[in-house]
């Protein structure tokens, strides 16, 4: 996927157009007018899925490494929270305090991500998707068969977020703001990192690893660091996910869910960190309300078709469709204005119009 025109040198500040500001205001005010169900299961859940998909967007969009193991990384963090902290199953549950459990879980997930990266970066790009798919399935089988640590098929239940500041953090509004803060933070971090030296060299490596190696860049190291960072993101989302569900079992890290994450990232669009969140919202709404409108039976066909159409006709996802639509509208308006002013008025490129 070519994303060279991804960022045509805009600074972060130029993002502060009215559109994003409205979006931020909406996200902040959302719990004021949405029902608990919409805050928790639509809002917070979309943000969590979006964050896991964001970790994939970062790897795939900027690093060219499509990993199907991002959910596995998140799932490992979730499992670690249940294993090191408290659960109601009576297996493991070491009872560590949350301020120890959570960092260890996230770090553990990030290190696992590095392991995944170390195995797959030594091979050519297209191997990555196959190797990570195999790793994701291996992890699924392993936790399903291992009863001593992962409690096998049953998994863990009764995993609670900590009570800090006298708040119960699984109540819809607090949990929503917690996920919003974390996912928002990661969103900005990825946006910033993509324009940092590291981000730019990663994108250059994606486009031409051989040249970058010749220029003296440590290609492997860059890729491994990218895996580490994406592991931090996915791991944090995994902690949120296990708090959201209150439970984790092999089904939570199954291959179908792992592919859902890929679908979310691709359908949303991999050229901008907002893509995965758009994809996640679309996915969650469809997942919850498809049954009221169409027969739930063929839900996967709908998801698969959406995915297919996006890959075939809009490789940059919903985000790309939106951008093209907007450009077309603006160009159209521009053209009409030109026509009124008389023929021959030089047309401004769409890009500069965005600033006005």
């Amino acid at each position: 996927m070519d994303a060279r025109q991804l960022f045509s040198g805009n600074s972060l500040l130029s993002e502060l157009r009215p559109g994003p500001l409205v979006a931020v205001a909406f996200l902040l005010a959302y719990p004021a007018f949405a029902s608990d169900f919409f805050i928790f299961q639509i809002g917070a859940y979309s943000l969590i899925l979006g964050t896991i998909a964001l970790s994939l967007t970062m790897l795939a969009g900027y690093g060219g490494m499509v990993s199907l193991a991002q959910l596995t990384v998140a799932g490992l963090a979730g499992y670690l929270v249940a294993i090191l902290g408290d659960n109601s199953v009576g297996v493991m549950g070491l009872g560590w305090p949350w301020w120890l459990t959570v960092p260890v879980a996230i770090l553990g997930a990030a290190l696992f991500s590095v392991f995944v990266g170390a195995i797959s970066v030594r091979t050519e790009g297209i191997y990555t998707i196959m190797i990570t798919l195999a790793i994701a399935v291996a992890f699924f089988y392993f936790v399903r068969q291992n009863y001593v640590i992962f409690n096998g098929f049953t998994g863990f239940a009764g995993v609670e977020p900590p009570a800090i500041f006298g708040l119960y953090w699984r109540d819809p509004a607090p949990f929503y703001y917690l996920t919003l803060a974390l996912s928002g933070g990661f969103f900005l971090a990825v946006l910033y990192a993509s324009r940092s030296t590291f981000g730019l060299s990663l994108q250059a490596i994606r486009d031409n690893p051989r040249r970058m190696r010749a220029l003296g860049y440590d290609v492997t190291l860059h890729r491994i660091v990218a895996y580490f960072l994406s592991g931090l993101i996915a791991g944090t989302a995994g902690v949120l996910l296990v708090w959201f569900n209150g439970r984790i079992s092999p089904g939570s890290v199954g291959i179908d869910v792992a592919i859902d994450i890929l679908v979310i990232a691709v359908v949303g669009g991999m050229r901008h960190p907002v893509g995965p969140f758009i994809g996640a919202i679309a996915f969650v709404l469809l997942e919850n309300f498809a049954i009221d409108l169409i027969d739930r039976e063929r839900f996967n066909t709908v998801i698969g078709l959406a995915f297919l159409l996006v890959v075939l006709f809009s490789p940059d996802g919903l985000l790309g469709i939106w951008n093209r639509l907007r450009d077309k509208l603006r160009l159209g308006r521009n053209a009409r204005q030109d026509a009124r002013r008389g023929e021959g008025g030089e047309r401004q490129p769409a890009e500069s119009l965005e600033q006005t």
Partner: protein
Amino acid sequence: MGDSGAGGMRQFVERHTFWAIIILLAAAVLLWMIFAVWPEWLISAIGRKKTFVNTLLNGVTLGGLYFLVASGFTLVFGLMRNVNLAHGSLYLLGAYIGYEVAEASGNWFLGLAVAFLAMAASGVLMQVLIFRRMEGDDLRQTLVTIAISIIAADLMLAVWTGTTYQFAPPEWLFGATTLPIVSVVKASGDPVFIKYPIYRLTVLGVALTVGIGLWLFLNRTKIGMMIRAGVNDRQMLSASGVNVQLLFALVFAIGAGLAGFAGVVGGTALSIAPGEDIRYLLASLIVVIVGGLGSVTGAAIGALLIGLAEQFGLAYFPTYGVVLTFLIMVVVLAVRPQGLMGEG
């Protein structure tokens, strides 16, 4: 690919004398374990001979089945750099279609043939309608194949539901045969011979035939040589005036057809049910990662290794047996990222 037969063997022995001796010794021990009557100490160490020999045969025959599926996968990748993650769907769809035809006609072989042809045709369609449009964009092709596999799995579920289907192969293929291998000698002195399903041996025979056929096709025919040339250097191939698109379509037809063929063969050995698509996709993935993408010989070695690992895992430590195959994959990747027979 780049298989070189006997000459390669001699080269190998000359270069790696130590390993050649180890392999020979291992083969000798294995032969002894298969044909000798086991002494007490061996039985107390690793269990009955019947279990061991059966598991060994199961591993080899399962490896044969995996080879049938994976050889098509690796062939398509080798020439077109197309990682077809819908390969499992072709397997399952071939099995279902073969089942319907075999049921309707009462002829199992007709089912087998139709499965091959139908999947070969779908392979050509996929290549002509979709992959041709995005040549060179490996990642997008792979994503498309994932989308196809999601939709195909759901539509197959709609048509054939979650029911388990089993083929009725010709009577003479069903049942067990007695092998000339003694499992134990009874107190009365009568030897007890090992029995083994005929059909499974047939699977092995079919896999060997297909393997040899592929080898001859790739090494002894003009088209096969073009394909091999294409694997090694694609630009050269198109520059040499060969109709590349036709070649691609042909290879895709063979690869996809083999998946459908394997669907009937494997569906008869085991059964057809939803989820088999993912299972065989994964088996193919691991087989070719271990064997080396694009290498048919590698696929054969990988399939044998994975088949054996799976069966010995299942028989001797079922709890983690499933994970064993992945462990092999990780070890191979760590030591030889391009796979056992991969080039690079």
